[in-house]
């Protein structure tokens, strides 16, 4: 057994620094405690005071988010947020990042990211019904990067496929900015009866604390601190900070915990998963929420390895574990239920009078500190923001040259960010639970809500390159695009969850990006009536001091209240009228066309107006809900060009028609636009529904052929040849 430093040695040798605790933080902790902390206590501080658990840098920014409206039942602060959807039902969702673990151990990093977010959902008492993943990788497709992509995808599938929750959607982007620091964000969505909501609290003196699930091992020790620091090329010894997942265990745990929630609702006081900072964060946070004290005997904690120290037991991030607070006297029945599932469950402590957090080990008190010292007394930091030079002096507007529209279209479709991601998402089971109405590949996934006429539309969006050009506008666009995707399926956006992926927040320029993008996100959330109900922060996404693009991932859920109004993006038949809704401008900065022609992204962001976008979305939703639309698709990367190919590829329909757009504008990425198809018989009603929204009928769907006359050029080709490029480009790159 490693000999732990004494309290005096910790102070004189500054041993706390190795745990990521600064001098001033150590001094503050010591001062509040009134004595020198021992090694276990400093360990608890390092976990609980890490950015991952305390949000010490991001809290001042997170406070600015808009978190409530009349539909929100429970906002940020619990395992996940809850939104009312009618008929006594609620939707529960949250997203979480697992970037650092995935960078060093892609399979287990991604797998445990999925496992962790699922626990957040069922800890509220909701049945997990869908997962989504938002991924970002480097774009060089070297052997290392291909391995990373393959293993992250395999890890998500390995966990998600076997646990029996469909992976229904998400996104993947490729950009040099993520070369050293991939993003792996996972979102889980659950459905529950409003009446069954469970909160993570430990209240009632004498009530029992029950530990259930996997035994505690030495995996993932102090992972929260690991996730709150930068990478360096030289250090690769961080692998031990990554946990190992067991989806089979989690399936049993999910089923058992949901059964406890339903059968013992009155006896279950609180439940929380052991995520970041493991046992200490779950227990301290549960006590803190109830304003209670807690005592736990660490000898009772099921342990996978011999001779674990209190430090290791408390800070292990072993997966598939939950902590419950149960009414005194009711422990036996609940332990029996867990035993029926073959799960380890033990009473390991109880709720105390007062407010102390006490841990016993081998009969000795190894920790005795106020709960609030771990949860509430963490200092918050604000950095003085500083506008990056690239934003002070943006590049001049990009003027593209499109001389051969067909050649440009083919090149565009082969870009990894535009090409079909089918070869990746086909590795996930998207249909288990048999509720998936719209499968991956469209604008948003749609799952029906059993026993109602409702469905939920789900998606994730992130757009680091636009935030790189303008954090505030880029942040707003990310929310707007998420809403646009949901509207295209016929859904009214309800609320969002976020993963804020940024660099080192103590750097003024990174702090600027964080603060400005939060402003943009908040403005858009208010515009679309989609409060932030949960989320997660991933800072320090830097390697050797080079940060990623600021990349907030927005996970959005929308409500469809009539199953017959669900709309997909595929052209359905020949002869439908094709409409481009929303005005198109010369907006090429940050576009795929700019990347294609210059190899990068630069300039201001143009062509976005929140108010206009909201009006367009409302009009489109109205037309869809009046059953006037046969296919709907939002315009994003690759503009109209990419959208038409995506819509035609599914069933082999093309388009014939004439448009006033130039060939270059075919690739413009003006925000706030849709392509819709309409049966000729509904033309008048459809145009009436759009009202003052700008629109143009640009053609008619037709079997197999694409024949579009632009103002300056004509595009003539076969749908099949475009589809081949679109479908095969990414798969070829990844071979």
């Amino acid at each position: 057994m490693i000999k732990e430093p004494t309290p005096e040695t910790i102070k004189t040798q500054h041993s706390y620094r190795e745990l990521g605790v600064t001098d001033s933080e150590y001094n503050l902790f010591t001062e509040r405690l009134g004595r020198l902390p021992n090694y276990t206590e400093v360990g608890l501080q390092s976990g609980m005071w890490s950015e991952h658990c305390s949000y010490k840098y991001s809290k001042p920014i997170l406070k600015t988010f808009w978190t409530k409206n009349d539909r929100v039942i429970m906002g940020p602060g619990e395992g996940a947020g809850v939104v009312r959807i009618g008929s006594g039902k609620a939707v529960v969702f949250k997203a979480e990042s697992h970037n650092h673990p995935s960078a060093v151990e892609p399979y287990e990093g991604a797998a445990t990211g999925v496992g962790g977010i699922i626990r957040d959902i069922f800890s509220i008492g909701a049945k997990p019904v869908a997962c989504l993943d938002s991924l970002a990788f480097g774009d060089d497709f070297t052997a290392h990067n291909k391995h990373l992509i393959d293993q992250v995808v395999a890890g998500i599938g390995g966990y998600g496929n076997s646990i029996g929750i469909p992976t229904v959607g998400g996104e993947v982007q490729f950009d040099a900015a993520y070369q050293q620091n991939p993003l792996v964000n996972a979102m889980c969505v659950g459905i529950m009866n409003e009446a069954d909501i469970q909160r993570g609290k430990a209240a009632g003196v004498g009530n029992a604390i029950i530990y259930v699930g996997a035994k505690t091992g030495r995996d993932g020790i102090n992972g929260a601190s690991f996730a709150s620091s930068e990478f360096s090329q030289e250090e690769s010894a961080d692998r031990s900070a990554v946990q190992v997942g067991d989806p089979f265990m989690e399936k049993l745990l999910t089923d058992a915990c949901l059964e406890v929630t339903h059968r013992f609702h009155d006896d279950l006081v609180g439940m929380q998963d052991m995520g970041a900072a493991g046992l200490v964060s779950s227990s301290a946070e549960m006590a803190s929420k109830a304003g209670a004290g807690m005592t736990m005997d660490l000898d009772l904690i099921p342990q996978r390895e011999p001779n674990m120290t209190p430090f290791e037991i408390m800070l292990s991030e072993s997966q598939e574990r939950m902590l419950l607070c149960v009414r005194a006297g009711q422990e036996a029945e609940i332990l029996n239920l867990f035993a029926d599932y073959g799960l380890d469950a033990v009473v390991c402590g109880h709720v105390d009078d007062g407010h102390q957090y006490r841990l016993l080990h081998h009969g000795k008190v190894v920790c005795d500190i106020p709960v609030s010292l771990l949860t509430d007394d963490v200092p918050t930091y604000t950095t003085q923001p500083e506008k990056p030079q690239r934003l002070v002096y943006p590049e001049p507007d990009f003027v593209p040259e499109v001389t051969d529209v067909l050649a440009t279209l083919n090149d565009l479709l082969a870009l990894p960010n535009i090409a079909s991601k089918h070869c990746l998402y086909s590795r996930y089971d998207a249909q288990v639970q048999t509720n998936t109405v719209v499968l991956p590949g469209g604008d948003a996934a749609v799952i029906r809500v059993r026993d109602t006429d409702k469905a939920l539309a789900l998606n994730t969006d992130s757009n680091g390159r636009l935030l790189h050009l303008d954090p505030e506008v880029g942040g707003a666009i990310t929310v707007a695009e998420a809403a646009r995707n949901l509207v295209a399926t016929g859904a009214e956006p309800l609320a969002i969850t976020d993963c804020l992926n940024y660099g080192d927040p103590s750097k003024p320029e990174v702090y600027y990006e964080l603060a400005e993008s939060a402003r943009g996100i908040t403005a858009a959330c208010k515009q679309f009536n989609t409060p932030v109900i949960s989320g997660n922060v991933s800072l320090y996404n830097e390697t050797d001091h080079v940060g990623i693009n600021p990349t907030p991932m927005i996970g959005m859920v929308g409500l469809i209240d009539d199953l017959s109004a669900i709309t997909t993006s595929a052209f359905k038949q020949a002869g439908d009228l094709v409409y481009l809704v929303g005005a198109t401008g010369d907006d090429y900065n940050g576009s795929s066309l700019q990347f294609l022609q210059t190899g990068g992204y630069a300039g201001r962001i143009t062509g976005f107006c929140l108010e206009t976008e909201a009006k367009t979305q409302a009009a489109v939703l109205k037309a869809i809900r009046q059953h006037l639309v046969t296919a709907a698709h939002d315009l994003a990367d690759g503009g109209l060009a990419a959208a038409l190919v995506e819509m035609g590829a599914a069933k082999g329909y093309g388009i014939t028609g004439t448009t006033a757009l130039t060939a270059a504008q075919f690739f413009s990425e003006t925000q706030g636009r849709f392509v819709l198809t309409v049966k000729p018989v509904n033309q008048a009603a459809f145009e009436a529904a759009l009202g003052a929204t700008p629109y143009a009928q640009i053609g008619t769907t037709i079997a197999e052929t694409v024949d579009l006359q632009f103002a300056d050029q004509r595009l003539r080709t076969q749908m099949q040849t475009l589809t081949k490029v679109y479908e095969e480009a990414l798969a070829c790159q990844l071979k």
Partner: protein
Amino acid sequence: MKAAVISFPGSNCDEDLVYALQLAGHEAELVRSTATQLTDFDAVLLPGGFSYGDYLRSGAIAKFAPIMPALKQFAAAGGLVLGICNGFQILTEAGLLPGALQCNEKLNFICEAEPLTVVNNATSFSNQYAAGASITLPIAHGEGNYYADAATLAAIEANHQVVFRYADNPNGSLNDIAGLTNAAGNVLGMMPHPERAVEALLGGTDGLGVFASMASAIEGGTHDQRADA
């Protein structure tokens, strides 16, 4: 038809299967794999999923579950047994069906809608399909590559035990086999998921034929194995 759906620890399509059977108008109930009796059922179905996590090898641990002797007895008495996906893997592991299921040829898990041909519509699981019918059912598996040694494969073919074949063989199965019966014809294993294709809202109803065929065989008396004892 009154069907038992066996739920092993780790089964994740068990509730989907019960739901699909009930939607199709049949009686169905979940039976835990810790049960030791299968009386009063017309048919027994083993669902998809990852029994015991599929650690070691798919279906390898499930064959030792407490329910298995009763299942073998039920099958030996001529009762209809259907194994879907992991259920198919369990049936081969347990020796109730010939051959084995190994990793997909390209090693990855595959979730796709797959076109199939009904090559034998004279079985208790396919009598409601037209001969040679083309149907589409979803697959979702990592180990669906059907293998049998040459002699076994020849016997299976000679005995017309293959019921479903893939049109585009997604996993490398020998002879494009997607589903086959035992020699007696009362046990079927198939990798595609018929329970995922019973509602137009979710993309198709081609799976209904499997359950309707079973019910028809039972009602026709050819497989009246309701063991009241």
